[in-house]
Structures are given as C-alpha cells and as structure tokens.
C-alpha cells in the first residue's frame, strides 16, 4: 500500500480518491502505518485504510479467499457514477504496478470526456492515437493504428 500512498498526489491530481481494504482491524492499520509505512512514505498513508474483518466487502468484490481468510490483491477503478470500469486481481506474492493503474484511469477518463466517442487502442498512453468507432472505421483500423504504435 505504500506504493499507492507514494503516488497519492498524482492520483489526487487526476481526481481519484483511494480506499484500501484488508481483513486487519483499523487498530492494526494504525500500527502498520505508524511503525512501518511512515518510514516508507513521508507522512504515512493519506487515504482511508478500511477494515473488513468478516470479509463481507471482499466477498462482494470476489476477492475473499476463504481458505486463507484473507483478501486477494484486487484493484478496482470505479467511475463517478459508481460503475466499476476496471478490475485486476493478483494472488498475494506479486504486487501491483501503479503506473498501469494510472494509465487505465487516464484512458477511462478520456473515454468519459468524449462521451464514449473515442476508444483507446492497446497500449494507449496519454497523447497517443485514439480510435473513433463508427462505420468508416470498420475494416480500416489498420490505416490509423498498428501494434508497433503501442506506447
């Protein structure tokens, strides 16, 4: 979570709020923040660290692991209408790459800003070519985009 905390100001600039969730109590969250995360990130964790000891929230998001009694590394991008636009779930030993999350947020924000008129091809990064789906684009994607253009 320190990786997310570290990039919190970048996320805030994009208008993104963060909530982290685990099965630890909020008391343990405080101890983890005070004793370890503050040593990794100046000022500690700036967002809400939520506690889901019974796994109710994790079950609703499909990340509850009943064998281990923990929540898997699930990451959800939720838009201003409360709709989930992206989800990624990893097993515990591998961490997320926040830069990819930020890229996806930027892509979904671009789609939203164009009211769905533009779509983001594979590998799109801000400033990259977008696609404008419509009758003229059918069969003609090759004219405006190819895999070598991936950012």
């Amino acid at each position, binding site marked *: 979570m320190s990786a997310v905390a570290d990039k919190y100001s970048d996320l805030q600039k994009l*208008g993104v709020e963060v909530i982290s*969730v685990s099965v630890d109590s909020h008391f343990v969250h405080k101890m983890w923040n005070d004793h370890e995360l503050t040593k990794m990130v100046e000022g500690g964790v700036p967002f*809400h660290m939520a506690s889901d*000891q019974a796994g109710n929230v994790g079950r609703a998001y499909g990340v509850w692991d009943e064998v281990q009694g923990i929540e898997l590394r699930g990451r*959800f991008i*939720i838009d201003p209408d409360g709709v*989930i636009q992206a989800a990624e779930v990893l097993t515990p030993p591998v961490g997320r790459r926040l830069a990819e999350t930020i890229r996806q947020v930027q892509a979904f924000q671009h789609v939203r800003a164009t009211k769905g008129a533009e779509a983001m091809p594979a590998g799109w990064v801000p400033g990259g070519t977008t696609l404008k789906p419509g009758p003229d684009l059918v069969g003609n994607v090759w004219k405006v985009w190819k895999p070598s253009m991936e950012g």
Partner: protein
Amino acid sequence: MSEQPQGCARITGTVSGATPEPSGPEERHADKEDVMTARVGQKAPDFTAPAYHRGGFTSVQLSSYLGRWVLLCFYPGDFTFV
C-alpha cells in the same frame, strides 16, 4: 465519515443492503454467493467499513464518493511483505 466511538466490539465492513449475518455458526450459509458480486461495467457494491485515516478512527462509505473516481485496493494483510 464521522469519528467512531471505540468499543471492544469487533466491527467490520458491511455491504449496503445486505442482511446481517446470523450469529450462530449452524445458521451460517456455507456459500454467500447471493451477495452482490462485482463485475466490470456494473455498479460497484456499496459498503461501509471502519477505517483508519490520518491519525483517527472513522468510517468510510463507498457511495459517499459518488461524483469522483475511486481506486479501491484490497490486499492480503498489514505487515505482509509485498
């Protein structure tokens, strides 16, 4: 997101609109898949949960962020290594 009184009860996250779980183990259902399951393109299940935030204990509700983008991150546990 009000400051919460801190008792000794084991408070936990709750999905909005979900019926409280029966207390007796014999009454528990083995599978609770009837609880709303998240899917991309669908509404995010709303929830309320106790939280630690900038030195204080509070409560956080997902739907209070309607109108803003939210990054919701689950992780296996505090003091784990990744």
